[in-house]
Structure formats: structure tokens, C-alpha cells
């Protein structure tokens, strides 16, 4: 088993910087998800680890094995990296049976015949495909095809598994099932996972750590809890989970919204440089805003929508709209009612463009 290490990895396409000086270490048996909007460089990073793209700078190693290095002008082609990889569009070969799909990497490695059969069957058993082995993968559902792809990646018993949006072509109910299956396989075989996704709940559920990227630059690396609860910047805060913002004038003593002055919410003051700028953004998750009868930031309920378990309120504070979500089990204010808003878990960001 091995750690994956990316050092100062960069990649350009023409004048566009796809990945900029990325550093990342993935421990043995760890699952790291790369999360970000499309075009942020996450897939390019994965493809550099896989070896489909060369680096423009930096180096990548697995354990003590060098994979790519600009400085040493070294590049190991993907077929020699010994990774398992699963692609978004399954990429199972329709002209081969399920068994032959899974056996392919073993045949390429010219293993003895009985070992190929044994290991293929083992991989098929681990993915519940043994009964479909003789059939064509085209007869399987999307989930079935992705299982074939997983079995094929497992067959070589890799140290590292690269997953490129493996669940996004699946129907929603299959997604959750496959998520558990991948997690379960990892527990049993102990491989490390580098996972690309744009689905944050997938990233949260699967990974030990999340790497959030934007335009080629790493924004934050941390556990799901850290990334959600202590986002490093406004981008991460907005990208993960629901968010709303309130513009506030700032002075040393507190904040001024819509002509009214308030103390710091829950006594959390912004960083000194934000106060010095004279204005900032008060940010909070809609579920982390409370209605209070006395005090609080004053607003008026403009709209109210039932979303099943939660009720979604739009509260106008001056000219800004604040979204608040509360459980339906507590009776809330009616439309048109004046309310006070308290922010038990406030975040402060600079008012300048993020």
C-alpha cells in the first residue's frame, strides 16, 4: 500500500492555466474527493495522476515510485502505473463478455490461465456479478455496467483507485447503493481513492477529505465537516451547501444594516482587515438562522414555501433577501409579519468580489 503525493503540479492548455501548483498527499487507504465546478481542473488533475496528461510542472509519486516529473523529464505511461480507474461513461467494452471485460487487465499482464480465472471470478463475486459473467455488458443496467467497470479495476488488486465521476451517469437510487458498495470495497481491500465529482453530497458521504478547487487553484483541503463548518473562503462557503449573504456597514463597535445598528452576531466580529474596509458580508446557512421575537436583525417575511420537512422563508432585510429554513414542526411567522433574525453561526467575508 502506498501514499499518493502531488507536488507543485501545474498544467496549462495554451494560455489557460488548468491546474496551478497543486499540492496533495493521500494516505494509504484514504479517500480524497476533488470537488469543484466544471472546468476547475479536477478532472485534469485526475488524468495527470492516471498518466493521460503530462505535467507542465511539479511531480507525482506513489510511495517511492516516481510517476511523472517535469524536472527529471520522467513520465510513466498509464499502462504501467498499475492503477484501477472507473470512468463516468462506464467504458466497458461492448464486444467482450462481462467476464472478458474483467479479465482483460489480467490477460494483458500475461498471468497464468488459472490465476486469471480465479482472480476474475473473485472480482466478479465482490461486485455481485458472478451470475452475469457470461453475458454481454450491454444487457446490464447502468449500475450493472459500472459494477463491471469496478470489477475490472479491482481485478489487478490496485493500491490506488481513480474514480472519475463514477456515479453521475447512474439513476439516483443506484447512486446511493453504489456509493456504499465502493466504500465497502475500499474497507475490505484498503486501496486509496482519488475521486472526482461535482456532487457535494457524494463527496461528503464517501471521502475522508475533500479538496475544493476553483479555476485550477486549491481553495481548501479538509474533512467534510471542516469544509462545511469552517469554509476557508467565500467560494467554498457558497459552493458547499446553501448560503445567504447580508451586506453590512462595519465600524469598530458593530454592524449597520439598512440604517440600523446591531452588535456583532453571536459576538463574532469580522477579521480586523474587513472591519478596516468599512463594509463586509455577513454569511450564514439558511438552516443556521433563527427567528427571535425580541431584537435581532429586523426584517419582513416576504414568501413562505413548504418543502416537506422544512419550510423555506424569504425574509426581506431592507432590500436584501435572506433565506431561512426551519423545520415544519415549529410554528413560524406568517407572510407579512415583522421578524427578528439571529445568526448563531455567522461567517464574515470581504464585501469585495469573491
Amino acid at each position, binding site marked *: 500500500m502506498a501514499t499518493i503525493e502531488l507536488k507543485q503540479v501545474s498544467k496549462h492548455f495554451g494560455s489557460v492555466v488548468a491546474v496551478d501548483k497543486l499540492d496533495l498527499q493521500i494516505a494509504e487507504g484514504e479517500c480524497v474527493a476533488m470537488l469543484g465546478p466544471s472546468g476547475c481542473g479536477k478532472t485534469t488533475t485526475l488524468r495527470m495522476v492516471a498518466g493521460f496528461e503530462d505535467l507542465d510542472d511539479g511531480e507525482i509519486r506513489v510511495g517511492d515510485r516516481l510517476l511523472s516529473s517535469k524536472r527529471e523529464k520522467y513520465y510513466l505511461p*498509464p499502462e504501467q502505473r498499475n492503477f484501477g480507474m472507473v470512468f463516468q*461513461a462506464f467504458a466497458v*467494452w461492448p464486444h467482450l463478455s462481462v467476464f472478458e471485460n474483467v479479465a482483460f487487465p489480467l490477460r494483458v499482464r500475461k498471468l497464468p490461465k488459472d490465476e486469471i480465472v480465479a482472480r476474475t471470478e473473485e472480482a466478479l463475486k465482490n461486485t455481485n456479478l458472478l451470475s452475469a459473467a457470461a453475458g454481454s455488458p450491454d444487457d446490464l443496467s447502468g449500475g450493472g455496467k459500472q459494477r463491471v467497470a469496478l470489477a475490472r479495476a479491482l481485478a489487478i488488486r490496485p493500491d490506488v483507485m481513480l474514480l472519475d465521476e463514477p456515479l453521475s451517469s447512474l439513476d439516483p437510487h443506484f447512486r446511493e447503493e453504489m456509493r456504499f458498495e465502493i466504500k465497502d470495497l475500499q474497507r475490505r481491500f484498503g486501496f486509496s481513492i482519488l475521486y472526482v465529482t461535482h456532487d457535494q453530497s457524494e463527496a461528503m458521504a464517501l471521502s475522508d477529505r475533500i479538496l475544493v478547487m476553483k479555476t485550477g487553484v486549491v481553495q481548501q483541503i479538509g474533512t467534510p465537516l471542516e469544509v462545511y463548518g469552517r469554509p476557508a473562503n467565500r467560494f467554498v462557503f457558497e459552493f458547499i451547501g446553501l448560503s445567504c449573504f447580508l451586506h453590512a456597514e462595519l465600524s469598530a463597535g458593530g454592524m449597520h444594516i439598512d440604517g440600523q445598528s446591531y452588535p456583532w452576531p453571536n459576538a463574532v466580529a469580522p477579521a480586523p482587515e474587513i472591519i478596516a474596509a468599512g463594509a463586509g458580508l455577513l454569511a450564514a446557512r439558511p438552516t443556521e438562522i433563527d427567528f427571535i421575537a425580541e431584537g435581532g436583525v429586523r426584517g419582513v417575511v416576504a414568501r413562505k414555501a413548504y418543502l416537506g420537512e422544512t419550510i423555506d422563508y424569504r425574509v426581506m432585510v431592507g432590500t436584501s433577501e435572506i433565506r431561512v429554513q426551519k423545520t415544519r414542526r415549529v410554528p413560524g411567522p406568517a407572510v407579512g409579519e415583522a421578524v427578528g433574525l439571529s445568526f448563531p453561526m455567522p461567517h464574515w467575508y470581504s464585501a469585495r468580489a469573491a
Partner: protein
Amino acid sequence: MTTKTHTRFGTPELLFGLSVAVLVIVVAVPMLLIFFNAFWVDGHFNVADVIRVLRHPETYKALWNSLVLSVGVTITGTIVGTFFAWLVTRTDLPFKRTMKLLFLVPFMLPAFIGALAWKMLLSPRAGYINRFFIDVLGFDGPIFNIYSYAGIILVETMYLFPFVFIQVSGALERMDPTLEESARISGADLITITRKITIPLVLPSILSGALLIMLYSMAHFGTVAVLGIESGIYNIPTLIYEKIHQSAGSFDSIRTATVLATVLVITAALILWLQNRVLAKGRYQIIAGKSFRPSELKLRGLRIPLLVVCILYIAFTIVLPTATIFMVGGLKTYGLPFVSENLTWSNYYHILFEWDLTRGAIWNSISLGLSAALITMFAGVIISYVIVKMRVRGKGILEFLGMLPFSVPGSVIALGVILAWSGKFGINLYNTVWIILIAYIARYMAFSLKANSAALEQVHDSLVEAARASGATMAQALRDIVVPLVRPGMVAAFFLIFLPALRELTVSVLLYGPTTRTIGVAIYTLNEDGETVYSAALAGIALIIIVLGEVLIKRLVTSKTSAA
């Protein structure tokens, strides 16, 4: 819904009846007459006599030649087409996009004009290249005799390989690159991937293109007629031509022709059936949405040599024959060297403005092409509408009859039309333009049905329903909603028919009379009569018309579709 409110008078049934009538008269009767003539001898069904005809050395030889030539062309065309398709899609060859377009040009050029050019270049005694080697370089004999199996196969390959090229390059381009990447990450090198993954996945496309080459080569008249006569090589279509033309309609030769035609139809049907099977069974879902470009093979040191190969191939198969046609067309007498005192514009002038034979031929081709295209376009819309949109029982017959000529070689259609319209039913159209027009309509109906059905299938029923819900009558809905949306399909159908009709040879050569030569027939007969220079000049003019037409369609179709 419509069937309840508006069909009291049976509009769909009326349309259906009319469509069936048109197709029966134009397609079914001629075809049935061929089978009838082939199998019905002396008042009874007679298979033994069919076998007797097939055993005749002449027929037997024609069948054998058709087989040898088409198999040969299929093999060479498939190799050439697959190789170039791979080169322009999967390697870092320079100027790939331009090359890809250039490889499609041979599709525009009529093969028999190409054959004519190669005859001028490589005929054993008079061909310019052979003469250069004998006279200038002192060779003892010609370096290559184009009047041979090899010569015919080479020339047909040049003009038919795009069938494979288009199919394979399309498949390679649309193929999901992760299919190959997953093989790479599984540990396979590029050679293993090509052998085990890429080729098997595009094999259905290769086979389907190969079968199309075979179908066309089997039924191909022009090249064999131009290059085979001298050394006595004839295939089924040229023997049918021989039988109909040379023997002045004797019963025995017509019977031989119908038997040959039957063999041709059965072979063609078999090939198309095979192609359908290959496509249905083997069309893998290998197309995916997002992805990176497939990894290109770095040609490194071979980059420039392979580019040179491509350029030489294009120079040799497109530029050289075309230039030869124009140069020979400008010679005072055939056989003179190409120096300025031997060249003149007067041949072109003579052909365009003075000579009734060639002027008539140009006029005939243009008027026949226009009328056939217009009639077929409108009939095609109506029949497609019945097939695609109406729920009438038995519309499968329409589809079958309309698409049948697609698999029926031109010489067979012409033969059927002769049998049906030279007095058998009291109407004798032989030697008039009308018989050619009927044959063109039969031949090109399938093109129109394909283009129009495709366009109609895009027009969802709910669009008409929305118009009806807004208060439009069925007629208004058709006029304001359906017709504007189908118009690009109609325009496409028009040109898909008009341009091939302009250069048509196989059908017209069997049907022409003294005053009803088409451009193709005129080029062919002038060449037969030894008027090589005029033949080349007319071919040159035909090439100009064809290229202008193709450019015009590209313009029209792209602007129409982007507007729609």
C-alpha cells in the same frame, strides 16, 4: 384525432391509394416484369431454362467477372478507406481537417469520367504515361495496362473507397475515448488496444462500408464499360447493356438480360441484408457525451512521409485525372503532346454552342434532372407523410416499394422500364425522354423518401396538435407548421436527386434514343466513337457543372438548416 374528425371522406385512404398507385406503376410493375420474363418461358414457369442461360459461357463469365471485380474493389477500397480514416482521426498528421475533406472529393466525381481519364493516361499504346515511358525513357512496353482486371479495380477503388472512409472515420471520431483509456489504464499498450479494442469496436462500420463498396461495384457500369471493352472484360451491367443494345431486342437476349438482372437484384438484396444485420447486431453503444479528445498517436518521424503519401494519393486520384480531362479536352487532336500550340478553346466552344448532339445532351440532362428532382421531391413528401405520420394499414408496403429501388441496380431499373413501357401495355415510350424520366423517378424515389422521412420524424405530433389547439384547421396546420419545418428536408431531397441525375450514365445508357442522349451518355458514346477529344471536353464541362452544383448545395443546405 384527425382520423375521427377529418377522415369521413377518407383523405388518408385517398393519399395512400395515390401513393401506392405511383409506386406500383413506377417500381412494382417493372420489377415484376423482369422476374416474369426471367422465369416464365413458353407459357409456364421454367427454372431449368434459367439455369441453361446461367450456364452459357458468356453469362457465366459476366457473373464471375462481377464477383472478381467487386471483391477486389471491396478489399482494396476497405484497406485504403480504413487506413486514411485512421490517419485523419487518430494521429497527429498535419492538415488533418483539410485532408479529411479532400478524401471525400472522389465521391463527387463520376467514376466513368475518372475511368476515361485513366484510359487517356494508361492505355497500353496511346496512354500518355505509357508513351512517356516508352518514347522518352526507352521502355520496351507499357508500364501498366489499364485495360485489365487490376486497372479496373484500381480505378473503381479510387472512387468508391470513401464509403469505408466516411463510415470508419465517423465511428472513430464518435467513439468514446474512455473505452480506449480504460484499456490503457488496465495495462494495455497502444498496439494491444488497437488490436483488441479499437478495431473490434469499429469493425461493424468497416464491414458496413465494405458491403456498400461491394454493392456499388457489383452494379457499376461506367468503369467496366470504358476500360473493359478493349480486352473483353465485361460484368453483369455491361453485358445487360450489350444484350439490349447490340441485339436489337431479340427475345433471347432480353431473356438473358432479365436473368442477369435477377441475379444482380438477388445479390444486391443479399448484400444489403447482410449490411443491415452487421449494423443491427454490431452497432455498439460506443458514443458518449463529454470527454477529452482521443489520444492521438504521435507519428514522429513518419509524420511528413505519411503526409506526402496522402498528398500524392490525392494528386494521383483527383488532380491528375481532372487535369488530364481538361487538357485532353483542349487538344486539337487526341495523341498530340501537351504544348501550347496544340491546345485550343475551340472544342469547348464547339460543344457548348455549335454541336446539336452535345448541346442537346446538356439540355436533356438538366431538364431531366430538374423534372425528376421536382416530381420525386413532391411525391416523396406525400409518401413519407403517409409512412411517418398517418395510421393507415398496409403502409409497410409503401415503405418497401419506395425503398426497393435503393437496392436495385440502375441497369435493372432501366431494363424493367423497357419491359414495361415499350408497347406492352399499349404505351410505347421507348426512345423518348419520358422513359428516362420514369426510370429516374424510380431510381431516386428512395433518396427522397429518406430525406423527407428524416425531416418529418423531427416534426413532433404535438407541434401540429398545438396548432390545432390554437384554432388552426388541419390544412392550416400543415401549411403553416409542417411544411416550413420539412422544407430543409425537401431541399436536401431535391439536390440529392438533381446532382446524381445530372451525371447519370447506367440508366440512361440503356434507354437513350437518337435525340435523347444525356451528358453521361454523350461522353460515353463520343468516347466509344473515338471522339476522345470531344468526349474529354464534355466531361470537363460536366465536372464544372457538378462541382458548382455541389458547392451550391452546401451553401443552400447549411443556410437553410441554420435558419430552421
